[in-house]
């Protein structure tokens, strides 16, 4: 068990390290050094920047030194919680990101909860009542769900909402609460706005999860332990829920590691369409404006959070699956 945990944590650290490199590459990609870009934007905005300030920035980020020194300096600053300045806003990156990162997590988690809440019972039903009418129906709907990318579904939902209900169903807050400080009422407002994005984001994942749950459970239903459980005199529903479903749930739990990057990815683009105040629109804006510190930081934070989420799900799996916990693969 310890070995498994150590392995997972090391892998997570390795992944985070890779993500920092990728983010650094993204920051470095555009031509010219960012201090010039920064200075230009600043002077265009009327707030000039002195040569001394420029030099200080160059020194801080090691601009004239080899790449790896720049990388290390940047990493050092990040470790201290200094993610640099968002050029367009003239404010620290973390300030600009603000609540958006948290809202991205909230939406992604809501989508995953929706996915599970729907995929689990449908997957179980489809496996137990294989080749029934509803099984075919779910399979068919699932195929279509899988074929519609989240942003297209968002477009369709927006169009339908706007032309048939005359309201813009995008956004995460009512106008009253958008700028308001956090309060219980604002949280409640958020919860009321969550279903639409969660469903839009969760549909294609749900279709996949149903397929996975169905085939996992079909495999398990054939195993002898199901028959011995029946032979012990358990009621059929209890046999199924207690044994094969429980066993099929383990690989299902591990799918969260695969679902999470997928949903976070989707949330970026769906947020654009549904105008959700997540990091998605901010990322796009910063990329278009070549505000690379902001963009790189967003990619970095999203990646790290996804890795942590995946790690938690792996540890959760270890906790529920004795085969992993007791070191037998």
């Amino acid at each position, binding site marked *: 068990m310890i070995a498994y945990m150590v392995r997972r944590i090391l892998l997570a650290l390795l992944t985070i390290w890779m993500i920092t490199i990728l983010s650094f590459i993204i920051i470095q990609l555009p031509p010219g050094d960012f201090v010039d870009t920064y200075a230009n934007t600043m002077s265009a905005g009327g707030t000039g920047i002195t040569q001394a300030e420029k030099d200080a920035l160059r020194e801080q980020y090691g601009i004239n030194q080899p790449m790896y020194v720049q990388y290390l300096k940047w990493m050092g600053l990040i470790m201290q919680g200094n993610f640099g300045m968002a050029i367009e806003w003239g404010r620290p990156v973390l300030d600009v990101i603000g609540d958006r990162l948290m809202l991205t997590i909230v939406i992604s988690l809501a989508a995953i909860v929706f996915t599970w809440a729907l995929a689990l019972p449908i997957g179980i039903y489809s496996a137990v009542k294989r080749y029934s009418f509803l099984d075919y129906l779910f399979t068919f709907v699932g195929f279509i769900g899988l074929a519609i990318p989240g942003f297209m579904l968002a477009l369709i939902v927006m169009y339908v909402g706007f032309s048939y209900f005359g309201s813009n169903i995008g956004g995460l807050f009512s106008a009253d609460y958008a700028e308001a400080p956090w309060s219980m009422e604002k949280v409640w407002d958020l919860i009321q706005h969550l279903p639409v994005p969660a469903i839009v984001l969760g549909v294609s994942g749900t279709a996949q999860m149903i397929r996975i749950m169905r085939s996992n459970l079909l495999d398990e239903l054939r195993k002898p*332990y199901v*028959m*011995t459980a029946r032979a*012990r*005199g358990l009621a*059929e529903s209890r046999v199924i829920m207690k044994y094969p479903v*429980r066993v099929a749930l383990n690989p299902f739990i591990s799918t969260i590691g695969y679902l999470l990057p997928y949903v976070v990815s989707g949330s970026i683009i769906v947020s654009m369409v549904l105008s959700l105040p997540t990091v998605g629109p901010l990322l796009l804006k910063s990329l278009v404006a070549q505000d690379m510190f902001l963009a790189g930081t967003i990619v970095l934070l999203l990646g790290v959070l996804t890795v942590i989420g995946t790690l938690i799900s792996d540890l959760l799996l270890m906790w529920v699956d*004795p*085969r992993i916990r007791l070191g037998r693969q």
Partner: protein
Amino acid sequence: MTKDNHPLLSVRNLKTYFFQDEGTVKAVDGASFDVFPGKTLGIVGESGCGKSVTAQSILRIVDAPGKIVEGTITLTRANGNQVELTQLQPDSQEMRDIRGAEIGLVFQEPMTSFSPVHTVGDQITEAIQLHMNVTKLEARKRGIEALRSVGIPKPERRIDEYAFELSGGLRQRAMIAVALSCSPRLLIADEPTTALDVTTQAQILDLLRTLQQQNQMAIMLITHNLGVVAEMCDDVVVMYLGRVVEQGTVDDIFHSSKHPYTKALLSSIPSIEMESRVKLPTITGSIPHPYARPAGCPFYPRCERFMEGVCDKQEPTLLAVSDKQKVSCFLYQK
């Protein structure tokens, strides 16, 4: 306890078919036999002859698309009532009361017969709590006792372990403990020793015999191993392609077998008196495909004493040739 000559379980003309798109597989096609209290009935045959489906039919746990289409399975319950199992719904309360409590089942594969994510104790106390009106604590105590009675060392620790933590022999013992935890009157053992090594096999068979003597339990032993049959059984049923081709006492079968198939099976066992370096006789041909069952006697294409115009035209019926022995072959039907 019922009288000795009164069967505990009586199967008559059982037919269990599997309906598939490609055709119907007649897994069990008219099997009849009796199981007596305190006795062991061996069911012998090659793989695919319907042995296991017969066991599943008795417990009413045949998986779809399998279905019992004909026949009766009569069980004499502990209170003396006779129940017709084919008339019960598979998931009915009465059927569930019988399963586990009155008929126990042991499978060939002890590894996959246990859930990989539940402890052995979970699965054993579950059965006890279900069939006996006891508290959780009491069920656990009985579970430990059941494990101890099948010779598992340190049962109070083993009860909290998972099946994959036990060795093959211990696992099968634990499986038997689960099956016997509610003192069933009939134990169906489906190839209980096939997956085990020879030493463990002998131990498990010994264990079954001891437990049988203690509880006066009937055993229905399904196997393809004639050695096991000779060692364990009182009566034997030989099956071929879902039919009973011969049945009788263990002495009848081993010393005066009648059916050519039984004879062929017996002659393919190596014997210590045999001349060395001589090829063992085998049964020629292979089991016909279940969709392409031959007309007439199912064994005729492989039979040495095939009579043209008889065996391939009509179906033989199971007829008595002596007091206790019956055979289904035209050689003995006048």
